[in-house]
């Protein structure tokens, strides 16, 4: 496996992650407890402790294009159990955010990434989530038009799918929040 390519790049990447994380990568001593307890480890290409070490080694491309960062559901089991108190869940957020800002579209887990994007678009335009619109737009974007559709009739019958969404009154403030922080 190709590891360190350029010492300056390695330092820059590790420093950027540490600054956003407010934590030190060197805290991790690779015990692997985070990976042992991870509920989605069976789907990952790199385990959480590998992601931490790879970040420290500056393997930016591999980390930012990994399945792992998008499969993590932020259940916080890893951070809760980490004997060093390292922000394992936090590093996944940081890496996703860096990938997103760099415009990296995950090749293998793009649906998870798209769901987050469509979700925030929905918040931006309504201030609240309009579930039917969210699901519709997500399906159009991923082209999984029929997946889960068999659930719809019964959900409608039970009153779970509302036909109209609510928009908040002060949408200007929501627009300002997105403008200032997006």
């Amino acid at each position, binding site marked *: 496996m190709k590891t360190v390519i350029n010492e300056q790049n390695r330092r820059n990447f590790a420093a950027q992650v540490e600054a956003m994380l407010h934590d030190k990568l060197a805290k991790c001593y690779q015990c692997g407890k985070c990976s042992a307890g991870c509920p989605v480890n069976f789907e990952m290409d790199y385990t959480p402790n590998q992601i931490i070490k790879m970040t420290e080694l500056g393997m930016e491309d591999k980390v930012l294009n990994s399945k792992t960062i998008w499969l993590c559901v932020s259940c916080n089991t890893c951070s809760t159990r980490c004997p060093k108190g390292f922000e394992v869940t936090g590093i996944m957020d940081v890496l996703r955010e860096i990938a997103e800002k760099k415009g990296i579209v995950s090749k293998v887990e793009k649906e998870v990434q798209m*769901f987050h994007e469509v*979700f925030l678009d929905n918040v931006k335009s309504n201030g609240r989530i309009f579930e039917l619109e969210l699901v519709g737009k997500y399906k159009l974007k991923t082209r999984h038009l029929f997946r889960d559709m068999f659930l719809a009739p019964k959900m409608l019958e039970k009153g779970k799918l509302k036909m109209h969404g609510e928009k908040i009154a002060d949408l200007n403030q929501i627009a300002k929040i997105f403008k*200032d922080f997006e």
Partner: protein
Amino acid sequence: MKLAYYPGCSLKGTSFEYEVSLLKILETLNIEVKEIPDWNCCGASAAHSINHNLSVALPARNLAIAENGGYESVLAPCAACSNRLKSADYELKTDDILKKKITDSLEMPYKAEMSINNMLEFLIGVVGKDKIKSMVKKPLSGLKVASYYGCLLVRPPKIMKFDDPENPVTMDELVALTGAEPVDYSFKTECCGAINSLSKPDVVMALTGNILYDIKKHGADLVVVACPLCHSNLDVRQREIERKYDEKLGLPVLFITELLGLSFGITPKDLAIDGHMVAADRVLKKIEGLPNQQ
């Protein structure tokens, strides 16, 4: 004490049963809560997954509206919302630079002096066990109930500061107050797959299947939850899980507010229990003298 109520988006949509049953039991308990005016979505998992600052700023608007409206406490029944509100509150208390940026953007001050409660904290801490016990008119004796906590009520412990992150018992205590028998099992705090329900359904069904089959193995009649997303995965996806793993489950999933409501003598219909995908009628028949089965 002025109590603010932050419903969140799910309680106005797919998990309307949670809001109906919550408001019904609060009416019975004679406790008044006020919805935060013009509240917005907390950003849920999507915001913190791809934009940290937004994940603090979105909940901050709700918190600032509540605090400036003179409220001392916020009830967020959705586990994910309570998690995001508490996380934002924590960030605002510990990151002065981000706090200034956010309060400047919102043009509202925020002192971070309110207590933010999830459903279980509210029931145990604000309502109190004695008051709940005194309201139990129809003890649910003979009913075996498994409490499923999931992730967001208890983790991360340094921010949630609620119960034991590996073996929580608060919901089991509430179940015991209703006269039902709490069922112990292994997957109380294992993740159901949460937000990846639509984007990774196979993973979610594997995780949720583990939880449901373990509950079944331990002999529970039904499951109680305090999270709309957990409910959605355990209830809405249950038939599909039965088909995928070719083994019947038939486990109704109720919100803790519905179970309490039943023990208070409120009818299943008034608690919107008929809104769930897995019908609870057969199990509810086990409860003696329950008024109006549907």
